[in-house]
């Protein structure tokens, strides 16, 4: 499929006058990744306009956090983007540490990096699987991805006590140290994961049907991506080499050597490939982090922090590279133990804004594909 046929040029036909119809892809839908509603205007089969309607999963988390202490908000950050709970915790904890000026011991930083990258593997395996599911491969790629996730979720359960709502990071470190069986299983997972990625690539990357469905669909040019404020794999697939891990060098990422995959065209295929390559880089980071953890002498995993934290008056913005994009927490403290303002910069929400521009000119069946390639979680969009 070449580039010229990607955008539909409406032809004027003198005899026929067609009106655009409005299609409502409703909140309950098998392929919208949560409760997400779209009002689409179609001219024939081609999309003319698209209006997303959000808010079906709003749970007032930002307001609730104003009534909780800083420590009590950590379980709520788990539930923001429920697939990547460790990175949510990390972003929040980073923001509070900036606000209160808390240092983190090295062993805890190693553990945090390991958990972050494991979360990235989790998320991308699921995202690619569900992209294929939206395309119609009946659950087989999903099952392969879920199978690898099970191994990582077992690791999370061992370390933190829960598979999904981990609640593991604390101000100044992590909650508990790694248990006995963690490192052997982690090494096994890291050793076997490249084999899984290779199998996924053999299965999917050169599949002709996938190529014809994904290439030149949903193109987002790099200047438009920057204008919309898009971050994460979507931005990198458009060709902008911006990764918060490289820019901010938070935690131990300044000492770790890894590459940032970028795309050229910015279509669905590039986003899919960027996620696959990010998985490979995550495995590389994990190997280095494991080595750093072994070289660190066993020590504290949490620096001394008062039970009820009262940060000084001020504001702080802490951001990390979550698997979906730049996740940021903006905190304003008034000196008491409860925050004055608690604001989440959710990557899925900002990445959704160019949806209309990406979908215009394509067919209806492409909407689901483009939405799947942005990789949103409605819990994060609506908070």
């Amino acid at each position, binding site marked *: 499929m070449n580039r010229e046929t990607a955008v539909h040029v409406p032809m004027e036909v003198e005899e026929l006058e067609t009106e655009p*119809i409005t*299609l409502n*892809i409703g909140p309950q*839908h*098998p*392929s919208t990744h949560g409760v997400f509603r779209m009002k689409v205007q179609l001219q024939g*089969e081609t999309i003319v306009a698209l209006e997303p309607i959000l808010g079906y999963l709003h749970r007032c988390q930002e307001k609730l956090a104003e009534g909780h202490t800083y420590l009590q908000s950590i379980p709520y950050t788990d539930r923001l983007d429920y697939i990547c709970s460790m990175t949510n915790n990390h972003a929040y904890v980073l923001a509070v540490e900036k606000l209160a000026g808390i240092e983190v011991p090295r062993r805890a930083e190693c553990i945090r990096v390991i958990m972050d990258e494991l979360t990235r593997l989790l998320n991308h395996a699921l995202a690619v699987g569900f992209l*294929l599911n*939206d*395309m*119609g*491969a*009946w*659950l*087989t790629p999903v*099952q*392969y991805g879920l*199978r690898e996730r099970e191994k990582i979720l077992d690791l999370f359960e061992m370390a933190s006590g829960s598979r999904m709502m981990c609640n593991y990071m604390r101000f100044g470190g992590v909650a508990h140290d790694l248990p006995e069986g963690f490192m052997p299983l982690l090494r096994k997972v890291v050793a076997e994961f490249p084999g899984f990625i290779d199998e996924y690539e053999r*299965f999917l990357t050169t*599949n002709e*049907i*996938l190529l*014809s*469905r994904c290439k030149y669909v949903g193109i987002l040019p790099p200047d438009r991506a920057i204008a919309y404020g898009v971050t994460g794999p979507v931005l990198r697939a458009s060709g902008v080499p911006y990764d918060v891990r490289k820019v901010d060098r938070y935690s131990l990422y300044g000492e770790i050597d890894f590459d940032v995959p970028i795309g050229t065209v910015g279509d669905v295929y590039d986003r899919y490939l960027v996620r696959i390559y990010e998985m490979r880089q995550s495995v590389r980071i994990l190997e280095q982090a494991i080595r750093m953890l072994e070289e660190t002498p066993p020590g504290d995993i949490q620096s001394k922090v008062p039970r009820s934290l009262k940060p000084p008056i001020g504001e702080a913005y802490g951001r990390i590279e979550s698997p979906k994009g730049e996740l940021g927490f903006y905190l304003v403290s008034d000196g008491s133990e409860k925050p004055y303002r608690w604001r989440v910069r959710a990557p899925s929400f900002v990445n959704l804004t160019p949806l209309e521009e990406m979908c215009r000119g394509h*067919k*209806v*069946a*492409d*909407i*689901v594909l483009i939405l799947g390639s942005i990789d949103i979680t409605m819990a994060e969009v609506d908070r």
Partner: protein
Amino acid sequence: MELLIQGLNRLLGQALPDWAVVLIGMAIVITLIFVLAPVIFMFLTWLLRRGIARFADRIGPNRTGLGPFNKERTRQRWPLWGLLQPVADGVKMFTKEDIIPDKGDKVLHRMAPIAAIVPAMLVFAVIPFGKELSAVDLNVGVVYVVAVSSLFTLVLLVAGWSSNNKYSLLGAMRTAAQMVSYEVPMVLSLVVPVLFARSLSLNAIVAAQAGLRWYIFYFPLGTLAFLTYFTAALAEVNHTPFDLPEADSEIVAGYITEYSGMKFALFFMGEFINQFLVCALATVLFLGGWQGPGVGIGGVLGYLLSVFWFFLKAFALYFLFVWIRATWPRLRVDQLMGFAWKRLVPITLGNVLVSGLAVVVWSLLRK
């Protein structure tokens, strides 16, 4: 059926006049087909669910099924094969509420599911399930099959229209367009075995493939015809990778959205029987039908072996369907239509041309 009538003649020839014997024979055959079709449907759904599960590293339904009648041991012996799962599904379908849209056409809405299985049952009549075991031996079998199976397109337009749902109508029109477009390469691929066998009768085509001279091995013309027939057949029966009209993301279920309970089950059955029929036709035309080692043995054993070989080949082809369904994503509508008209039709036309020339040249060389 001729066999049956001869047998019945011997039994009852003295008591009843000829037409009565023929009538009894026809009744028995019709009953057999009406029993065989749902049983095949149930087996196919079982095969589909267990197959897709195994491709995804899991087991599939294994709680309902054959096993020791002792409840305690059944609970421990979990590798049951789940063979009664289709029966459980059938019971579930029966007990669902029947919803008819208020503003739709009620008569058509009731009639469409029943009409959906009629073409499938009609095609069953000509397929040779074994040695001399076809219900009717038409000498224009191939033409009959093609004509009758294209009635399904009408049925689904009726189904989409009577639902009074613009998305059902959209889905029905898309499906109809897809089926009509893929008829052309399918029929053109069917012409190749007809040319090789020089007969339109399905029995004659099977008989001409005796002794492993199957048409799929006639490289390259027969193989290409098989591949194009298989691809076009995948699209005819709305199977992955051409199942956009029915498993769609925005028009929920296409023309069967507004059907619930037993009506949905009938559409579902019609679809599965169509898939089986397409596999059976491919077996008959390209894989030698009921031919196989041991069918030359006289007596009941020869007949049984021929039936066994036929079903083995047909279900092996269906397993190929399941394999494809578990692996490939689906095409978009415009890509689907483009593939049919821009790629398959020229290939099949060229194939027919070259096959015709080859047959003529071969017969000239033999003289």
